[in-house]
């Protein structure tokens, strides 16, 4: 997805994990994914560079679709779609 497409996405759930370092964001994402329905989009906010790499791998293993990452001011916005 392009940055424009990502910016236009409306996420069903936003997980703000900026206050926690690895593996915190992953744990928060795991908890949050249970609260949304299949096909819905979730965004994960993380200031952690490692999480940016970890989430796509997590999605691949779980079968969720990784949509892309936006670089915001000092943090990342990672988008994914639940399988």
């Amino acid at each position: 997805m392009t940055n424009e497409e990502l910016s236009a996405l409306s996420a069903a759930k936003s997980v703000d994990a900026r206050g926690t370092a690895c593996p915190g964001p992953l744990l928060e994402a795991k908890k949050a994914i249970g609260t949304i329905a299949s096909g819905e989009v979730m965004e994960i906010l993380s200031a952690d560079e490692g999480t940016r790499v970890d989430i796509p791998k997590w999605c691949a293993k779980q079968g969720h679709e990784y949509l892309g990452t936006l670089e915001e001011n000092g943090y990342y916005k990672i988008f994914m779609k639940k399988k």
Partner: protein
Amino acid sequence: MAQLQKEIDALSKKVTMLENSRKDQLSIAVVSGDFDKILASMVIALAAAANDTQVKLFFSFWALSALRDEKKKAKSKDFISRMFGVMLPKGRNKLGLSNLNMMGMGPVMIKHLMRKKNVLSIDRMFKEAGELGIEITICEMSMDLMGFKKEEIIDYPNLRYAGASTFVNEGLESSMQLFI
């Protein structure tokens, strides 16, 4: 015909064994009792559990100190057990560092940094581990050797006592095994 059946049976047994050896499961033998190594064990375990990997931690030897509850007391210990109890760290928050311990200053600094950099505390990690269903198995022999009693071990939801053969058997089924 009977010969063929025998071969099929042998093959299917082998296939089952191979399938079992590739389970989405992580086994860690946690042997070190240093704060940093317990921390590393917990971070890896939590990351695996977040990925829905079954995690089995086998605590043995020095690592047992991390599972002592600082508030609990054990009665009826013999002299050597009591000495061990006094000399070894009482709980995960009393552990030293494997490097730069500086007589206890190192751990204080690391914990300060962990808070500053938003790393989950070791207490929080154990709590999350319990909620994620991470299993902790305590080596019965180590308990006995170091003179630890079950009544001084932390409350943890998936805790059990077993021997080395449990670790080996479960480890053989795991697709990842670590020794820390």
